[in-house]
């Protein structure tokens, strides 16, 4: 009980005036005259749930429209994109018919990082001298699978010896 409980009880003992019998008749007529009542100006604040329903309906319609747009794009994407990729890609004909597991050569490099002159010598059984050059290289070979985009790279060192004949004067 609060400090005002006595006062609250006192207030509740004072009763408001009852409605007149005429008011009941007027309300009854108003309810009966539904069609006429529809013409009354709409001044009543709409309930929140009606506003929310309209707002929700608008949001739902907007979301549905966005989904339809995306669905439209997704449905058309495979049909349009595949021919476009094929037409603009200058892929070799071998690649287009190759199985997806096959790699094709993509490049080869040879880097000479050392070359040494080892002098003149006479090869066995030869009367003409030759100059021997020894070169050390690193060779790299690359393959690529055009279907999957995977690549394979092999790199190894190599050594090459060249015998160059020396012309006599």
């Amino acid at each position, binding site marked *: 009980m609060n400090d*005002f409980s006595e*006062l*609250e009880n*006192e*207030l*509740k*003992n*004072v*009763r*408001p*005036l*009852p*409605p*007149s019998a*005429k*008011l*009941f008749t*007027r*309300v*009854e007529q*108003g*309810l*009966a*005259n*539904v069609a006429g*009542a529809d013409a*009354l100006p709409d*001044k*009543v*604040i709409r*309930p929140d749930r009606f506003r929310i329903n309209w707002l929700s309906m608008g949001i739902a319609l907007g979301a549905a429209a966005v989904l339809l747009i995306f669905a439209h794009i997704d449905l058309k994407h495979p049909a349009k994109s595949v021919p476009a990729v094929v037409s603009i890609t200058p892929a070799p004909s071998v690649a287009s018919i190759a199985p997806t597991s096959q790699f094709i050569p993509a490049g080869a490099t040879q880097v000479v990082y050392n070359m040494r002159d080892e002098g003149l010598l006479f090869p066995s059984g030869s009367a003409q001298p030759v100059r021997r050059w020894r070169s050390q290289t690193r060779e790299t070979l690359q393959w690529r699978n055009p279907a999957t985009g995977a690549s394979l790279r092999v790199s190894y060192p190599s050594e090459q010896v060249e015998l160059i004949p020396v012309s006599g004067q």
Partner: protein
Amino acid sequence: MDNVAIHESWKTSFSELAPGLLLFARQWVRSGADAEDIVQEAFVKFWRRNHNIDNRALLYATVRSIALDLIRRDSRRARREAEAYSEADQAVEPQFEIANESQRLVGNAVDRLPHEQREVLVMKIWNDLTFAEIAEALGISQNTAASRYRYALAALKKDLRPQ
């Protein structure tokens, strides 16, 4: 509620709610006839739209909206009501069933309350609305509704029981 015109349940609801609704409407008009006009229009609209009669916050918001619209529609009436408000201790017509002098003093004290306090007091005491319902109907917070109610009771206590 297929046909509200022949549906008799409105009488039960209206009988229970009408005294409080009329008192609530009288916060804006000093004439009992004007208050009945407001309550009639509000109740018919509310009932016709098949709103749940338990949604009292909406019902009282409807009454309030129509009462304020009535005042706006008739500027002369508005001036008259404003004059009546300024002479709050001279109510044109009684709002309560006065059984004795003590109740007459209570009624007069209620009339002297600031409007925003009297509005909440009427909804709470004579219409049994919760603070949540009052807040929703008036578009204020529950704390504000509760504060106005306490201020109203404090003012009444000071007015009726001066120490």
